[in-house]
């Protein structure tokens, strides 16, 4: 197997532009008079959710609740993960029932972590609607799950994607390959 150098798909500036696109799309679709909650999937979705909330606040859309979801206990591959599975805390300090929830993750690939997140949210309350926002979408879905808001589309199949964010990785880029 030959070593292929990964290519930088988005640098810090590119990620910022993608987040701006996400915020634009989210604002355009925001329902009126419905409480909104932005919930990130640990760990990088959490970082992106926090950025999204401050970006929305910067554009005058404040009073949005932010939360973090740990999906470890809901994963369908928990058995295969074994003791590598670290259970982290879910921190959602508001009632989901009746709320417009924007679920945030870094990469949408198989759709399995989103499936786990939907099951977890279902145990926490009954949101009015759940929308999915991802920084990067790549082909390879194994479940009928699609994103509503996408920062960057990748069309190439079977190419791994790595998202690195300053808050969690001390680096800021999206690599492909």
């Amino acid at each position: 197997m030959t070593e292929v150098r990964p290519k930088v798909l988005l640098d810090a500036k590119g990620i910022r532009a993608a987040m701006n696109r996400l915020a634009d799309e989210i604002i355009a679709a925001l329902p009126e008079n419905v409480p909104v909650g932005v919930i990130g999937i640990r760990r990088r979705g959490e970082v992106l959710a926090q950025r999204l909330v401050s970006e929305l606040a910067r554009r005058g859309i404040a009073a949005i609740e932010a939360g973090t979801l740990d999906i470890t206990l809901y994963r369908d591959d928990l058995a295969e993960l074994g003791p590598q599975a670290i259970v982290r805390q879910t921190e959602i300090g508001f009632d989901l029932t009746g709320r417009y929830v924007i679920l945030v993750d870094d990469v949408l690939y198989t759709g399995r972590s989103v499936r786990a997140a939907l099951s977890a949210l279902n145990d926490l309350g009954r949101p009015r609607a759940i929308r999915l926002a991802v920084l990067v979408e790549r082909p390879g879905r194994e479940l009928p799950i699609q994103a509503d808001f996408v920062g960057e589309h990748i069309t190439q199949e079977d190419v791994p994607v790595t998202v690195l964010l300053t808050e969690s990785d001390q680096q800021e880029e999206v690599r492909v390959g």
Partner: protein
Amino acid sequence: MNPSSPTAPRDPAGSGAPSAVPANPTASSFTWKRPHLLGLEELTAEEILHIFTTAESFQEVSTRSIKKVPALRGRVVVNLFFEESTRTRMSFALAAQRLSADVLEFAAGKSSVSKGESLRDTVRNIEAMGVDTFVIRHSAAGAPHYITRCTNCRVVNAGDGQHEHPTQGLIDIFTIRERKGRIEGLNVVIVGDIGHSRVARSNLWGLTKLGAKVTLVGPTTLVPRAFEQMGARVGHDLDAALKEADVVNMLRIQRERMTSQVFPTTEEYVRLFGLTRRRLKATKPDLLIMHPGPVNRGVELASDVADGPNSSILRQVSNGLAIRMAVLFLINQVGASPDDVVEA
């Protein structure tokens, strides 16, 4: 990390792969490796802290309207109790149920044990039904260790003779840490029937590993000097020990375990070793008062002290659920993956 790819752990190039840089520099790369929890004596400080971190995550589950997660769906936990127990048994059952495991209750009195079946045969027969975890309480020290050699199941010690009661030790230490913010450097006084107490032994092992100073106090007949070899100070004057104490853990006087006259009268015990409001006047105002239950009101604890603001008795009970969920979850994850190395 993005756990969407089922092959993520074995596909370092995939999108879901852990990157070269750890996702969180403060999170340890620690991996739990024990399929059983038999005692705190064999655990490292790191392992104890890993159970605490996991338990903190499980505390949140008990605050939900639907207090259940699917982590152990399809697994079976057997409560194998050869000694009377109400709260420990209920706590383990509820912890298993909150993880979506099925729970089988075994009561020695009404079972085949009364017909003369051996422990080994009992365990092997239940195992043949397809169960995964035994939670065992037995009057013989080492019974849980013996069971690990008879089965392929996970084993949790829920109290073996006078040896250990590891989950109670973890609960007490977790509660101290929650209230005080640390363990290291704290003065912890454990009072009562230390000699007969598996709770005292588990507390002592765990607390000394995490850097607390432990003093054991009680009548000379109940607090053997041999405990000094386990790293504790031994004393017989409660007021002297309480002066510097940050935490006092009042053990239950176990009348059922007293085979000989170890102290003259209950009245004398209360006068010398009972925690009363008057005795509290000379202690630190934020002294944390603990009791593993069930309380003999008016013996080791005065009623108003047991219900007072410094008491963490009920908090210990609620933390018990989170600790037991964490233990059941961690041991059941070991060996679940084909790549996993199981260390007994």
